[in-house]
Every structure is written in C-alpha cells, then in structure tokens.
C-alpha cells in the first residue's frame, strides 16, 4: 500500500472500550488505529465496518480500544495504521516482561509506578548489542523463514530469519561478523519484483497469522514435568495441548508455578491473562532466583512473560494470548521446545464475551459468543511439533469454570480442543490432596507416558477399584467389606497418598524425574500384583482389618519419608526392598 497521507476518522460513539468512528475512503478489517484523546495516542483495533446511515459517502468503523478512554469526546481524531496487531520478534524476547500489548513493564515503570493510558516503550531493547554471525553470502537465494545469520541469546542460538511472508529473494548485501542492535540494518534483499527490503535482527509479525510449520508432526516425545500424577497418568508430549480446569482454590496456580519451575523445555512463555498480578510478580521476582532444571542458569533466562493481569484493560486480553502464541511459534521455528502456559483461557473467553455483548451480537450459551468453541479450537491448533525444525510449541491452558462446573461452554470446548485434560477436583483440594488432579474423573491424555500403557491402566484401575470400595465403606460400613477388598482399598490409598499426592513446596518432593518415576512404578506394580496374606489365624475379620490398616499406615509413613529424603541411587533402590519386605514379611508371619 502506498498511502502518502494518513487515513483518519472521527469518533461518533464511545461506550466503555468500544468506539465507533466515521471515515471517508478506505478502512481495512483488523487493522490497528490510534485514537487521539487529550493528546495521548491510544491503540485500537478494527472489529467491524458498516455503512454510515447519515452520510452516503462515509462509513462507520467499530473498534475496540486497548486502554482506558476517560476524557474521549465525539469528534476525537482516529488515525488508521494499515497494519494489523503485531508482535516484534527478535533477540531479547527471553527474560522480558511485558503487558498484554508487548510494552515492557520495567521500562514503563521508569516513567510511572502506575500504568497510565497512552504510555509506550519499545518492545525490545533497542540499544543492546548482539554478536551477529552471517550464514549467507551476497548472491545467495533465500526465502521467507530462511536463516541469514545467528546471534547468541543466553544459552540459545537465535536465528535471524527472513520474515515468513517473503517470497524468493536474493541477498544483495549483508554485514560481516559484528555487534549490532535491533534497529540496525544487517542485510538487503532483492525480491522477484526487484523491490529492495532491509532486514534487521527483529521484524514485526501479525499475531493472528500463525507462523507456518516446516513439517508438522504428531507430538511424540513425553515432557518431564516433574509432577508425578501428570507424568504417569496424564502426560503431555512436546507440541501437545492440555486444558487444565479447576474451581478456584483447587490449585491451578501452584500447578502452573510447578510447571514453570520443573518442566523440561528450552523456552517457557507465560501468558498471565486476566489473573492476579501478584502471581506473575512471584514468577518474575522469586523464580529469577531459582535454577533452570536443565542448565542451572537463573530460571528467568528461559522465560518471558506477558502480563495482562485482571485489572488491566480487558480489550488487550485477547491480544495477549495471540502475542504469546506468536512468540512461541517463532521459537519453535528456530528449533526449540517451547511450553506456553496461558492462565486463564476463561478470562480470554470472557473478554470476547464482553466485547460481543457491547457489539450487540446475539449471545450463545452463558452469553458467550456463538463461535467460542471454534475460536478456542483455533487457538489450541497453533500448538504442535515440527519435525522440519525439531522444535515444538506445547500449549497448556488453564480454565476457570464458573461455579466449578465443567459443563460450562469454555471447559467443554477446551475438552474438545486439547489432547490432554487435567481436571482439578474440589473434593481433593478440600482434603488437601495436592496436586488436586483427579485421576478418575475428567483426566485424560492421548500422549505416551514414561510407563507402559499396561502399567498405566493397571494403576488407574487400582485407584478406580479402591474408590469404589471407599464408596461402599461409606454407604454400608466397613464391617460388610471383605478383608480382600479392604486390602485392595488400602493399596489404592497407598498409591494415592504416596505417589499421586506431591508436596509442591518441598525441595525434593516437588519434582520427580523419569528415572525416579520408573523406580516408583516398579514398586507400585509390585504392590498391585502381589497378594498380601495377612496373618489371620483365628482373628475376627475386624481385627484383621485393623492390623491391615496399621501395617499400611506404617508403610505409607515410610514411603512419604522416602519421597522427601531418598536422593542417591542406592537410597532410591531401598523402595523396592521395602515393598518386597512388606509383602514377604507378612507371608513369613503365616
């Protein structure tokens, strides 16, 4: 487009964050605009274009404004930019903390302690120098997505890419090995139309246009998240998708924080979408002092955070998730394993609901937009593994169902859209059984576990049966339950108490790696498979049950201690011995 003068409009209606403006000439669907209020320039996005009922030669454009509009008046100027909402991609993304529109929060903090409408700062540090090493030469042919050089970004080699929408081009000039910042020109390419384009270390990319895969693949490599119930029963693979719903207080936040700390990945992106500011702050202030499990660096070196927290403008909430997704796709394209944690997709959906309500759309269930399931699916579809680049983008979205009711539209659509589902249960949370992922209800996964399908199913089945017996006990009483069933029930309790439950705040217990999981699984399988004939002699059934309970209580206490103390291989191996003993000792007693 070659507009020499800016296209403008004038406000004709203002309601919360939704405005209408009259324009003459052309407006592009989805483009961004600036609304000028009291001399401040507020960012907006075009949602809809309609005919002007008053003037035939004019049109009305409907926009959402990403900042507070106090002081706006009819007639205020609107300037259209011709560009859709985009994110700046380049070195320096890692360790950054932005608001939902990629304004760096630490830079804004230098201007004011509060986020005042109209504040802006460059998305990436424009002064920092990067050591650029070219990988192409003058005359080379390149196309969109090709690498022209690299810069080291922390531990990663950050590839400098030709923007993805470029066709076949020829390198006309490129700088040698040198230190440059993101505003400097590093290469010039000539496209097939003989148009010259300057390339820099960073470029902008529209957030609603997914960055392509080189060669999309089925996610197949399991992620070690460190959380036992996940890695054993509801695992997720690199490039997978997971919905994580739970009523408030069920432990979504603690689980997210655990994943941040312990999930093995090259890059972790947090989209703090409409949630408490304090939780994001804890991540970037306290986690910075923690070690990355795979490198030993500061945990922040593998992270970046988009914070559109709950008191920030709602209109920017939708954007924050798309921006985070785009950054994730960018690192996937570079060949890295990225985990995106979006907390919470319900707030994102609510932002869409508020907007569609203001636009006067006919509401769907619970007043959400009718197409919300499609929008949710579309979002999760952007995750995936790429065998062309070797990278992946894993998307784990929390869901905050109204009233804790999983039947509500967002939870249902998420169940439909994701490969894994971690349902948090209020009952388990009330009993302080954390993490409160309920392995028996609403928890599922299509991805491979660190243990065999057979072992996984056996474990689930034991838990299921124990749960059934538990219900029997509470309806007809323990007396009517046969001893054999009671032993099975105690086995289930033991697996639940010692394996499924995990203390996220204990240094050692918080994270269990695959090698330890295998040892635990062997013990569990042994326990499930072995019949334990407790000494009955001429005891009444009730006495036997008391004995069974006492023995299992003792085992559980021991195992819990093992969870928080056994560190070396030798110490870990003791678990197997203990279980053998537990089974055998009782046989000797016969």
């Amino acid at each position: 487009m070659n507009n020499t003068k800016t296209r403008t409009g004038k406000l004709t209606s203002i309601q919360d964050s939704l405005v209408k403006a009259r324009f003459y000439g052309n407006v592009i669907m989805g483009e961004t605009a600036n609304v000028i209020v009291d001399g401040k320039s507020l960012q907006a996005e075009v949602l809809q274009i309609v005919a002007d009922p008053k003037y035939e030669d004019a049109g009305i454009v409907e926009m959402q404004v990403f900042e507070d509009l106090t002081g706006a008046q009819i007639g205020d100027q609107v300037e259209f930019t011709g560009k859709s909402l985009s994110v700046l991609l380049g070195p320096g993304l890692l360790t950054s903390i932005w608001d939902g529109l990629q304004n760096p929060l630490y830079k804004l903090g230098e201007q004011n302690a509060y986020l005042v409408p109209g504040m802006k700062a460059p998305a990436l540090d424009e002064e920092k120098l990067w050591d650029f090493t070219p990988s192409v030469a003058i005359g080379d042919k390149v196309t969109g997505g090709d690498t022209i050089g690299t810069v080291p970004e922390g531990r990663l080699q950050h590839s400098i890419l030709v923007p993805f929408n470029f066709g076949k081009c020829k390198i006309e000039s490129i700088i040698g090995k040198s230190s440059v910042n993101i505003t400097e020109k590093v290469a010039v390419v000539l496209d097939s139309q003989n148009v010259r384009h300057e390339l820099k270390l960073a470029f902008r990319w529209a957030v609603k246009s997914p960055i392509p895969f080189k060669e999309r693949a089925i996610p197949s490599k399991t992620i070690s998240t460190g959380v036992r119930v996940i890695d054993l029963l509801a695992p997720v693979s690199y490039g997978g998708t997971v919905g994580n719903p739970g009523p408030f207080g069920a432990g979504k936040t603690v689980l997210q924080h655990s994943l941040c700390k312990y999930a093995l990945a090259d890059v972790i992106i947090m989209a703090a979408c409409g949630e408490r500011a304090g939780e994001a702050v804890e991540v970037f202030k306290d986690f910075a002092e923690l070690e990355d499990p795979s490198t030993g660096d500061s945990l922040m070196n593998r992270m970046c955070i988009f914070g559109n927290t709950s008191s920030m403008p709602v209109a920017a909430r939708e954007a924050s998730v798309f921006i985070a997704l785009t950054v994730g796709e960018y690192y996937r394209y570079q060949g890295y394993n990225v985990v995106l944690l979006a907390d919470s997709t319900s707030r994102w959906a609510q932002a869409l609901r508020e907007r569609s309500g203001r636009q006067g759309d006919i509401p769907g269930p619970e007043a959400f937009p009718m197409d919300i399931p499609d929008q949710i699916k579309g979002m999760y579809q952007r995750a995936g593994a790429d065998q062309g680049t070797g990278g992946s983008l894993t998307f784990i979205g929390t869901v905050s169902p109204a009233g804790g009711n999983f039947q509500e539209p967002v939870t249902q659509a998420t169940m439909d859209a994701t490969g894994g589902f971690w349902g948090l249960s209020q009952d388990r949370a009330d009993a302080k059984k954390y993490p409160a992922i309920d392995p028996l209800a609403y928890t599922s996964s299509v991805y491979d576990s660190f243990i065999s399908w057979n072992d996984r199913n056996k474990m689930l089945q034991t838990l299921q049966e124990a749960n059934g017996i538990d219900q029997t006990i509470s309806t007809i009483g323990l007396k009517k339950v046969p001893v054999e069933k009671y032993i099975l029930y105690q086995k289930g309790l033991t697996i639940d108490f010692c394996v499924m439950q995990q203390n996220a705040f204990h240094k050692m217990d918080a994270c269990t790696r695959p090698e330890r999981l295998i040892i635990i699984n062997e013990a569990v399988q042994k326990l499930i498979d072995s019949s334990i004939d407790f000494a009955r002699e001429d005891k009444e059934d009730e006495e036997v049950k008391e004995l069974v309970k006492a023995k299992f209580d003792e085992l559980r206490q021991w195992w819990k201690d093992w969870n928080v103390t056994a560190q070396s291989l030798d110490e870990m191996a003791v678990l197997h011995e203990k279980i053998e003993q537990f089974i055998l000792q009782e046989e000797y007693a016969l």
Partner: protein
Amino acid sequence: MIRKEINRISEVGKALISVEGNPGVALNHVVELLEAETNQSLSFAKAINITEEITRFQVFNGTQGLSTQTKLRMHEVPLSAGFSYNMLGRSFDGIGDVADGGPEIIFDKQISTRLDTLNPTVRLVPKQPLWTGIPMIDVFNTLVKSQKIPIFAGPTEPYNRLLSQIAQGAQADVIIFAGIGLKFDEYHYFKEQLSQSGNIDKTIMFTHLAGDSQIKGLMLPDVALSVSREFADQGKDVLVLLTDMTNWSNILRNVANYQDQIPSLQGYPGSLYSELAKRYEVAADIEGAGSITIIGATTLESLEDPVPDNTGYITEGQFFLENGKLKLARSLSRLKQQVNGDTRADHRPIMTVMASLLADAEKAYEAAEVGAANDTFSQKLLRYREDFIRNMEEPFGESIELEAALDKCWDILKRHFEPTETGLSKKLIEQYWN
C-alpha cells in the same frame, strides 16, 4: 471560568439520565445538576456513554425529583476525591463528601479515582505475616500483609463481627472502612468497635447505607480505594475493610440492567469479573512505599453464585464462615506459603495432616448418618471432628499466639490418634508427640 451548561434533559430513568445530541461532554467526566429556577445544586452525574445522538449519565444522588428542565453544568474533569490527613476519624459518603455532620474538610489535594493499574514490576512479593490471634487463620490460613481476601458467609452469619475482630488486632497505620448497602446498625456497630479498640483516630469511614443512592454505592469503592492508595503511596500500611461486595455487585447489576446490557449469569453483566478485579487488585505491597491489604465480606446463598464465584478467582483465598464457625474445608489463604515456612518446623506438616484427617472425618460423618461408620477408626475420626470444630474452628474468643495454637493442635491429635495414623514424619513425632 465560565462552565458550559446544557438546558434540557431528554430522558430520566432510575439512576440514569440522557441528553439529546452531543453537548461536548467527555467520557467519565462529571456534570453538576442544577435546579432550573434557583440554580441550586441537586447532584453530580458522570457521562458513561456518548454518541452523536445521545449522551447518558449516571446520577450520583438518584433521579427522584429531576425534571426535563433540570440544568447540567459541565465540569470537564473526571470524578476526583479529596485527600487530607484531616480525614482520619471522620465519615464520608460514596463520593467523598462529609457525612458525619461535622465540619467540612479543607483537602490538601484532589486525587484521581480512576484506579489505574499498578505496574506489576513495582509490586513486592508479599512476605510479612499479619497475625490475628485467631488459630484458624494464624495456623491454617495465615494472613499476609497486602493480601486481598474476603469472608464468604450467609447473610445471617456474624461476618461483620469477624471483620471487626480482625481489624482490631491489625498492625496497620490507617484503616479505611468501605461499607456498601449497610444497615444502620451495622454502620453503628463498626463505629463502636473501632472507637472501643482505640483505632478510630486512624480510621476513615466511607459509608453507603441501604436505600441511599445506588450510584453513590457504586462509586464508593473507587473513592475509598483511591484515598487508601494515596496513603500507601505516602508510605503507610493501609488496611481496607470492604463490606459487602455482594451489595456492590447487585448495584452493578441494576445499573447494567438500566443500560440494557446483555446479562451473562443471573442477570450480572459479563464484566462482573473485571469490575471486581479492578477493585481488589488495588491491594499491593509497593516497592519504596506502603501497602494496602483488603479484607472484604461477600454474602452468599451458595458458593456457586456469580459474585462469590468470581471473587474466589480474583482474591488470594477466602475465609468461609458457617454456623458462626470459620470452616477449614473451604477456607484458603493463597499467600500462606510465603510466610508459614519459617515459623516453627511443625507448622506446615501439622496444618496438612489435620486438614486431611478432617476431610476423612467429614466422610465418616456422612457415613455415620446412614449407620456406616461402625469401625474403630471411623469412631476416632468422628470424635476428632467434634473436637476440631469446637476447639479450632471457633473464631471468636481470646486471642491465641501461634506457638500456643500449634501446641493446641498436637493436643487434639494426641487425644484421638496413634502417631502412625496421622501420617506425620517420624522426626516430628519424636519431637512433639510427647
């Protein structure tokens, strides 16, 4: 300065008025309503929706008595609140006007009530406990400075008594009381309590009584929180008591309804979550300045109601009051992990173990109702449950220090269980069981 005036109101509704055409008012700016003949000031109003055809206002004092002839005088600024240290010990209404019959106050400055978001980077991670002397809070759900936490309770529960009990022991420089839709006796009760505990001189009360103008109730938290924030910016530790946010949400619902907004759940607007969050998120421990702690009250029929449900997702936990007891099962302080790790070695484990046993006991209690809790251990659990409710869940009574409260926990466990039945580690058992 001569202020522009508008001479004709075209529509008068329950809390809203409209003016035809575009008089040049800006969004959220304030106009003053004047009696046509005498120019006597009747009320203020705020522009909430502006189009070329019509401008809509929320009227602070209600619309009774307004006529189409009522004049609007434009002030060309958004609503601000007065701020002065002379406000301490005094009472104000929802828009910050003196409401105790005392002398007018000369304010030091006018402050914005827009409640801009605090930049997350200047927030400190909260790490300082606020001790209340209530074991149920100090042991099981420790309160932390700058936390935002409501009391969830049925309408007939003594939630205001609990709120005032927590306030009495509070280690705060300034207490801001923000009451919305209060009954007069509730207002009076708080005033008495604050006076008796000697806290009245560091308290500012913002009060909206049931039956007062709805818009004033709607504005009240913004005014009260803006004043709180100014104190915090000046380095003070501020405690805000916000009661009852269900009343506030109901006003929000009414006004959304007057504006013909599409309701989401139970008539509440889709923005309920964001609106509540905007207020609660004012709570913060600010780097290089003071802090704001918010303890609220949310009355409810059921936890699934939209107001408590949305609140639960916003606040850092909740205290659940039922039958006059502070219930362990549904109460939660999300920040407790920040402070309960360096108290006493047994603090965290005993908290977890007692909660888990209580959950088992609740199951046994349900089983007992159908005669199914007939084994020895279930009987133990039932006795434990009774003991726990009587001795731990009682929020009212003498203040107990943390150490004493922890010892009390061990006593209860010892009364009912064998050491291995608790699941506590050998080390702790050796140290504390005898």
